[in-house]
């Protein structure tokens, strides 16, 4: 499929008034994916309770097509890392991520999953899951309100909407050169080995003394 020039918005709405729906393959495909994100049923700590609350009656994640929590990573599109990632748990999370089929997304929910949060000074706490796997959306908060998770969910939907199927800058999961699996860290005598995956984790250098 050649990347055709995008359809003129005015023309499209004019056609819509006449009862003719025009869409591109890319839009249709992304529309379908965006509205059926199945998360992995996977909770680590406190944030998992808010994640359940988001799926429960008051906030109802089903309105966004995300209520089908799959216990198996093989059937999931989205991993919500909800809670503190410990060094003992990190290899399992990377393994779960590797087992998810493409396209896959990661939401890092709450302070602990982003950076280790309040527990980051702990000897067994990983300072952010983005040391080993790429993260699409970060939600700060301890724990974030269910609305914040819904907001992140919509942010992810926007991201999916913007993914191109062809041409330069096409979505990473269609690009064979971009890895979709990452090495699982090993348990070492003092720490995980390696302590971060240098291909994934690029913290900015701080200039200060």
């Amino acid at each position, binding site marked *: 499929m050649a990347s055709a020039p995008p359809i003129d918005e005015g023309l499209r709405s004019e056609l819509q008034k006449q009862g003719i729906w025009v869409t591109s393959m890319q839009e249709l495909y992304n529309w379908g994916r965006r509205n059926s994100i199945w998360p992995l049923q996977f909770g680590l700590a406190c944030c998992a309770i808010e994640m359940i609350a988001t799926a429960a009656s008051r906030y109802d994640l089903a309105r966004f097509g995300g209520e089908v929590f799959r216990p198996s990573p093989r059937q999931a599109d989205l991993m919500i890392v909800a809670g503190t990632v410990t060094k003992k748990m990190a290899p399992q999370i990377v393994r779960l991520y590797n087992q998810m089929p493409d396209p896959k997304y990661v939401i890092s929910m709450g302070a602990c999953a982003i950076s280790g949060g309040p527990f980051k000074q702990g000897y*067994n706490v990983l300072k952010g899951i983005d040391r080993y796997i790429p993260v699409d959306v970060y939600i700060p908060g301890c724990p974030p309100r269910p609305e914040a998770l819904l907001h992140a969910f919509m942010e992810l939907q926007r991201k999916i909407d913007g993914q191109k199927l062809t041409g330069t800058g096409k979505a990473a999961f269609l690009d064979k050169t971009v890895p979709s699996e990452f090495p699982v860290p090993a348990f070492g005598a003092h720490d995980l080995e390696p302590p971060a995956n240098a291909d994934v984790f690029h913290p900015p250098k701080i200039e200060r003394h």
Partner: protein
Amino acid sequence: MEALDEIKVRIEAAIPGARLEIIPNPGPANQSSLLLDHAHASTVARFLRDDPALRLDYCSNVTGVDWLERTVKKKVKVKKVVEGEEKELEETREEIFSGYLEAVYHLYSMAHKHGPLVVRLRTRDRAEGAHLPSLTPVWRSAEFQEREIYDLYGIHFDGHPDLRRILMWDEFTDHPMRKDYREPDDYEYEPTPHDDVLEKAKQHYVPRPAQDGTANIAAQ
């Protein structure tokens, strides 16, 4: 429940050879404790559990404490002969308490609804492989908690049915709750550090040869 010294007297009468010591608690909580010797620890524990007046059948909390070697400076008044005259002088003396590891047990009675009786066991030193007798055969509730002490403090409990690491992974070699434990360096990105975190984060800062001089950077 009886007073602690009465209990001590009764134990010493019932178990010949048991060496007990009362460790006072200076705070307002008023929970003084009983230090047991290793050889008689499990006999004393059984006595505490089975004695009809005490019936301390429930061991609530088991925990380790790491006491570092500390020097306490004390001012002592000494009588000295100075220039043929006896004078009372103040001298600072340093007393060195050697470090040790400690296991603390909080005992209650569900039958009589009293407690707590605090029992302590101390190792000889803080060296790797310090030993203590296990009280898990007496109170099952100590099972996981003694494993935790073994994991985090490195005290070996003799007679524990299943002494393995519980919280950290099996390949781990340190005992992180000890006061002298140093965690691995993962301070690549610390935008808001202070105190000791700042010292660790500084190792990762961008070198500034112009301001700091190359020698200082090499020293780091």
